[in-house]
């Protein structure tokens, strides 16, 4: 069903997940996930709290590796390569698959050093080059005008919404191909939220975006595809329009219309 729907609109697949289970120790958090994330589209992950959205996102850049005792069974392919292959270069993977966390995490450094952190890691030392990257990333994250005069001040002095956008800029600075956004607009005021949404629509031209959100209107506004998770399982996946107007599953409908969750 998933496959035919995607074929109909002719999009290439960036991330392909097959029969994937995930365990925290002995506790299973994901069950048999199958999903084809289309390239250069926005895919929204929705579902009630604790259903495994963050866990799923973190399997895509192997961020779960750093938690002791976790285990993944199944296949996660990006650009046709199994990222859980023992030859996978995790560092290269994480450069390619950027992530913005549910809780914004500015480093206790200057705004400039935050954004330049990634490029520096990957060998860019030239001051002019770094400055250019910082400016470009901040412009892309719609933050440049607000911070251009205080790039060398601590990032911790930014407001919550600015910190969130700075984290997005930091992720963009390493030029990822896939961007994982874990509720990037939670705890933002409507104006900042609108800016982040604009930003996502803008980024969609070059990047494949997965975004977790609890805001149904937001998912409807900005995403092309929607995946509904429930208790560690993917209940339904499809074009956002279809999911929102004509959900195939009772649970999806109940959740979207706010009958539970």
């Amino acid at each position, binding site marked *: 069903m998933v496959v035919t729907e995607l074929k109909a609109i002719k999009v290439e697949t960036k991330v392909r997940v097959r029969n994937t289970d995930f365990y925290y120790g002995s506790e299973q958090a994901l069950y048999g996930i199958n999903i084809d994330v289309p390239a250069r589209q926005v895919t929204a992950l929705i579902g009630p709290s604790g259903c495994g959205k963050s866990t799923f996102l973190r399997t895509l*850049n192997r*961020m779960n590796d*750093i938690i*002791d005792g976790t285990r993944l069974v199944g296949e996660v392919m990006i650009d046709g390569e199994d990222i859980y292959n023992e030859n996978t270069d995790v*560092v*290269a993977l*994480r*450069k390619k698959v*950027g*992530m913005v*966390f549910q*809780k914004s*995490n500015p*480093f*206790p450094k200057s705004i400039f050093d935050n954004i330049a*952190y*990634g490029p520096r*890691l*990957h060998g860019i030392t030239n001051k002019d080059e770094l400055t250019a990257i910082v400016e470009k990333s901040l412009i892309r994250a719609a933050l440049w005008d607000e911070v251009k005069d205080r790039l060398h001040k601590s990032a*911790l002095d930014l407001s919550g919404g600015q910190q969130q956008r700075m*984290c997005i800029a*930091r*992720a963009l600075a*390493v030029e990822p191909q896939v961007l994982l956004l874990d509720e990037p607009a939670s705890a933002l005021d409507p104006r900042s939220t609108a800016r982040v949404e604009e930003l996502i629509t803008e980024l969609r031209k070059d990047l494949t975006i997965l975004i977790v959100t609890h805001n149904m209107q937001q998912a409807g506004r900005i995403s092309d595809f929607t995946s509904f998770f429930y208790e560690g399982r993917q209940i339904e996946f499809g074009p956002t329009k279809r999911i929102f107007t004509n959900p195939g599953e009772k649970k999806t409908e109940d959740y979207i219309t706010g009958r539970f969750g």
Partner: protein
Amino acid sequence: MRSRSAQTMIYWLMRAFTYFVLIVIAYIIFDIIRNGMPVLSWEFLTESPRKSGAEGGILPAIVGTLLLVLGTMAAALPLGMASAIYLSEYAKRGRFTEMLRLAILTLAGVPSIVFGLFGLGLFVLFLNFGASIIAGSLTLACMVLPTIIVSSEEALQGVPQSLREGSLALGATKWETIRKNVLPYAIPGMMTGSILGIGRAAGETAPILLTVAAFYLPGLPDSIFDQVMALPYHLYVLATQHPSADLVRPMQYGTALVLMILVMTVNLAAVLIRSRMRKKYRW
């Protein structure tokens, strides 16, 4: 009503105990300063003792203690911090690391004379360093290692996990993450705890008694394989071993005062590092 008056009473009781402790400490410090000050002079600080410590100064003991503090730092800081980094950042949480932690805590409670004997056995005799600065420093280092490891690990654990994740997610390796986004924030805390531990070691007598301290050695050392005098041991000798201990009482107080100032300076340095860095990083 009744519980209220009980509250008040407990409050005053606690207060009284606190003041009592403070008064005792203040009295000790005051007594040392009052009796030690008159002896403090340029001569006392810069000359060697004469007549087995009854006259002259305590320069060799000051130098000895400073060298031992430096030696202890040089040996214990890198080792302790490396162990803390391993335990906090690399070791998997499991039974083995729990046992390792327990062992370290136990080590912290071992009496210092036992460390002295250990140092005598290992460094002085087995490794054949003889009674020397290096043997004494290494012994003191063993003694303060648990303190350094525990406080350094605490400082590392104080760095939010989200900073590690943020760095790794940008494609940093584990070591790059530790070096660039964990250590810079943890180092002040690591230093503070470690320096406090070493400050305590500077005043220890038992470990150096068996591994380095000379009873009476007016000259200064030439190499790390020489023996030295040290303030705590010199104080012990003056107070209990000297043929006329009563007559050299002022010298004892002077030595005690110098030792106290030295240790307090070290502690002050630690506190200053901490308060300066606190202002810089907060999350």
